[in-house]
């Protein structure tokens, strides 16, 4: 979201600046089990995004006072590497944006992981964005879902995430950084695909109700592709 004076045209002759159709995803590649020390892990490339996710635990929750005697707690940290973006150098360490993304990512996994199976424990989910090009929280959740699944920690569903947005009157799937900077709306969403439940939803910009529904339909359809890539990555690991 920006909209400076020299706003580039995001759609020309029905094509986006990187040649995609409005409802088209960027290419996605996932490899499971790439961090040897972790219980589960995944490396994901999504367009120019490069994300590493790893899961540790379940282990005794530390410090002890945060433990829940009835279920596991999840700790989650999303972080962008200082060298990850084409533009500026990001200071390392959690900024306010990263703290919020860590929180909403944690909430996605609190929904799907069977926390009751591990009372008093913690499960750690780490998402490191090594290179960023828009949509990193969605890429992070999609990667972390494969990491958790590959760890064997029981989940009731494997979530995926992707964003949709708006440029002019067109609804676009999976905004890249340039599109995100100049779009009229951006809406990252995480879905539990089995029932189509919304686990994460954020939006800013301007959307009518109808445009929101249209964006959600696009996200649902993209789920078929993303879920298959996640499954293939898990199958490749255990083949």
């Amino acid at each position, binding site marked *: 979201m920006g909209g400076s004076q020299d706003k580039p045209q995001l759609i020309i002759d029905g094509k986006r600046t990187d040649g995609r159709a409005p409802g088209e995803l960027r290419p996605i590649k996932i490899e499971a089990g790439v961090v040897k020390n972790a219980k589960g892990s995944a490396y994901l490339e999504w367009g120019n995004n490069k994300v590493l996710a790893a899961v540790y635990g379940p282990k005794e929750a530390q410090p002890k006072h945060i433990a829940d005697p009835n279920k596991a707690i999840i700790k989650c940290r999303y972080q962008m590497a200082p060298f990850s973006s084409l533009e500026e150098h990001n200071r390392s360490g959690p900024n306010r944006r990263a703290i919020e993304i860590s929180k909403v990512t944690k909430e996605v996994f609190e929904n799907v992981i069977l926390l009751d199976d591990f009372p008093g424990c913690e499960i750690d989910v780490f998402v490191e964005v090594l290179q960023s090009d828009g949509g990193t929280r969605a890429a992070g959740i999609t990667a972390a879902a494969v990491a958790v699944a590959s760890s064997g920690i029981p989940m009731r569903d494997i979530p995926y995430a992707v964003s949709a947005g708006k440029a002019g009157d067109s609804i676009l799937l999976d905004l890249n950084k340039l599109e995100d900077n100049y779009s009229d709306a951006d809406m990252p969403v995480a879905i539990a695909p089995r029932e189509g439940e*919304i*686990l994460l*939803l954020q939006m800013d910009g301007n*959307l009518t*109700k109808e445009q929101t529904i249209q964006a959600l339909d696009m996200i649902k359809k993209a789920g078929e592709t993303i879920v298959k890539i996640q499954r293939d990555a898990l199958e490749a690991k255990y083949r």
Partner: protein
Amino acid sequence: MVGENEEYMLELLGKGKREQERDKMQYRDIKIEMGKIPHAEGSAQVDIGDTRVLAGVKIAVGAPLPDKPDEGALITGAELLPLASSTYEPGPPTPEAIEFARVVDRGIRAAEVVDLKSLFIEEGKVWSTFVDIYVLNYDGNLFDAGTLASTAALLSARMPKYEDGNVIREGNLGKLKTSGKVTSCTFAKVGNTILLDPSGNEEKVMAGRMTIANDENVIRAMQKGLRGAFSYSELSSMMDTTFDKSKQLRDILNKAVGE
């Protein structure tokens, strides 16, 4: 384990009832008090039921963001003061406080409440607008109270002057240039029930939270929170309710700021 209070809330909601006989899609009483802090450029205190928040606006000379050299800055913060609830503790902002501030900020920014272009002074110098939300008593639904208080404080804020390197904050001043208005509606999901404007007791038992910020025409920001999930049709009906109920919020806001 759920405590006694939580058990009672679940039982009550299970019977289709709310505290104080409230309907599911009914706000508690809302009150806005303007100008509580005359030293601030703008201020507003909002009560929604027993929740009370105070928003204060300060405007200071600062440097623009590198990617927006011709625009002023908007910086929103929120403090969950320890005096406001036995569950709040002193210390650096928690993820909850940061999320709260950022959701309010996104609504205000997306609805263009502040005309950031009007805050340009000269090359390398712009006005920075600081909105700080103080929670004075917590009884649920901070997001709607915070958005209402922040918007009201901004709509009423005085605009300082910059003359010969000095900032003039008193005397004959104009108003901060604003161009939009935003309010938000927050819903809690408890079991399969959806409630507008959750109280503190209801928030203790809610699984999921959804905030939708809008103006008269469009949705400006949304945020789903907590582990509970929402279906597409639930979201659709919450959008409808938001467009309906926000009329009431805008009326209260307009009255408070004298429009």
